[in-house]
């Protein structure tokens, strides 16, 4: 979608989309084959890896479960992970990035084979140091990759920035008529001094469905790295038939602006956005909307009463004691108001997991499992 007015393109002025240019690391297509959602194309190059465990979901559920992982368990500075997902008509795909610790036995068998392969690879690297030099600069980094992969292959870890370079992630998705894409990744975790930019572009048919979760924690809290990264930007663009913009959202946390990210975020350690759209998710959308509206109203009412409220498992913020420990709000989007955006902020990761689990529980019949259930 581009409007040329004079010599300057409108999209150039307003939106800096960076889809063209970087090399494609992976491509995945799911479509209906003999009445069942099946993977018809799966291609990934280093450092990206797709894992598609068979029999991971109950047999009555028609969906394909995909794990997207990276060698090294994250994205180093200077790297760009760019892949595309295509969901064919009337099929269902769920993309996760959860770590090894939260898998079932069937998935475990595939993973054990993968670990074995990686150990062999590591030994090979000792002998041939230049084996993995495509986007890896030298041996030490690749060793770090392998070690961290075996411990915790969390794709959304963003390592520190070297020489001011960015870590990038680009995702291009299309969902055809009647298809459903559930993008339910783990939160992005930016290490100290990291610089990260993520662009996710979705092209939906008018009756396609999408549920998207995009969230960020303050960093490696246990190590004391709290809002210590330099730059974070997450862009989500959802279009209907390439033409009508449904959601054009961008969250940017830039530590170079004043006040610093840490000052601005205060005691909140997690922020999240959920986007729900489509006829197959209409019930979920209405349910979540009423839940979140009640929750938001409840937060305001508690403040008005000024009595210490909801002292259950969440801690009260220290910087601003009158601020609530959990905030959530929702808005409808789109020309017909049939999309829903939910935004939440929490002081603990645990409470955010709980919120996501609670709101997305009704996806279980469609996807065959409860999202964010294992934490």
């Amino acid at each position: 979608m581009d409007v040329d007015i004079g010599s300057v393109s409108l999209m150039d002025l307003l939106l800096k989309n960076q889809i063209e240019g970087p090399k494609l690391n992976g491509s995945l297509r799911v479509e209906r084959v003999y009445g069942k959602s099946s993977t018809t194309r799966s291609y990934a190059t280093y450092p990206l890896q797709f894992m598609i465990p068979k029999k991971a979901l109950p047999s009555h559920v028609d969906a394909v479960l995909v794990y997207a992982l990276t060698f090294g368990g994250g994205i180093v500075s200077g790297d760009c992970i760019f892949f595309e997902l295509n969901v064919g008509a009337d099929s269902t795909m769920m993309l996760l990035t959860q770590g090894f610790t939260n898998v079932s036995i069937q998935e475990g068998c595939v993973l054990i084979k993968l670990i074995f392969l990686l150990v062999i690879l590591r030994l090979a690297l000792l002998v041939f140091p230049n084996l993995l030099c495509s986007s890896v600069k030298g041996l030490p980094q690749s060793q770090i990759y392998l070690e961290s992969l075996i411990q915790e292959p969390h794709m959304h870890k963003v390592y520190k920035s070297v020489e001011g370079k960015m870590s990038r992630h680009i995702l291009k998705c299309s969902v055809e008529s009647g298809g459903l894409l559930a993008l339910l990744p783990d939160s992005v975790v930016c290490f100290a001094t990291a610089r990260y930019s993520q662009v996710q572009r979705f092209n939906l048919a008018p009756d396609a469905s999408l549920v998207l979760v995009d969230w960020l924690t303050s960093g490696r809290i246990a190590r004391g790295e709290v809002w210590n990264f330099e730059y974070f930007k997450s862009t989500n663009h959802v279009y209907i038939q390439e033409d009508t913009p449904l959601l054009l959202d961008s969250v940017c946390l830039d530590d170079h602006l004043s006040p610093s990210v840490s000052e601005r975020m205060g005691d909140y350690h997690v922020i999240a956005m959920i986007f729900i759209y489509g006829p197959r998710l209409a019930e979920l959308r209405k349910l979540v909307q009423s839940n979140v509206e009640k929750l938001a109203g409840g937060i305001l009412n508690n403040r008005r009463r000024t009595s210490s409220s909801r002292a259950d498992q969440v801690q009260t913020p220290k910087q601003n004691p009158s601020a609530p420990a959990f905030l959530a709000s929702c808005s409808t989007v789109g020309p017909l108001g049939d999309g829903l955006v939910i935004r939440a902020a929490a002081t603990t990761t645990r409470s955010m997991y709980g919120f996501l689990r609670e709101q997305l529980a009704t996806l279980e019949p469609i996807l065959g499992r409860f999202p964010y259930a294992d934490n």
Partner: protein
Amino acid sequence: MTTEQNSTNAAVSRAEDHNLSRECALKLVTGFLTDVSVITDGPPIVQSGSMDWTTWQLLDSLFPTGGFAHSYGLETAYQGGLVSDCASLERFAVNSLQNSAGLSLPFVFAGNKFPNTECWLELNKILHAMLTNHVARKASLTQGSALLRTASTVFTEFPELKKMRACSYAPTATTPHHAPLFGVLCGLLGVDAVTAQRSYLFMGLRDILSAATRLNITGPLEAAKLQHQIAGVTETLLTSFSSPPSKGFLLDGHYS
């Protein structure tokens, strides 16, 4: 008194003499600025200072656009306990303006550079998808519609405004948002891009502090003091977020 001031005074008093409505008086004054022969006989004296009259009129509370209806989220922040005193209000105002600058200033700039209906329709479509918060979206539409109604009535020398107003009635009605329309209006009036963007931020700050006074978070004198204190920071925001991006501006993580 200069010739300009004399003539303006004459025009306003003439309007009063004839018991014209306030809007007609405004029209007469602006008519003077763009077509001097309406009132005086001499050649048009268009000095750089004459643009100030238009700019000040757009920012004045007298301009009937209902600009004070929007609190930029201050009301909810206050109810939610995030803003309770002057210090938290200042923090809120700066953060809110930073958000507003990042989101809206490119639209003000684009409207200013291409003040025509086709571009305006496209900008509305894009901004409608970017304003994901329904309260902010409704406020932008309210302010935009009000500004369109007022501008098409006051600045009659621009038929483009009437054309745009007609678009907002059409069956496939566009969503007239505030920022692009303000940019287009400034573009038509000949206000430069930087002044247009600065004016937009000024209005944002004005509206937040006006809401703060009405909510009793701060008194009118304190609000005025705060406005003066924040002015410097807001100018920095303008430099960081205004279009076209100035040297050193962070464009998707890369410093130019």
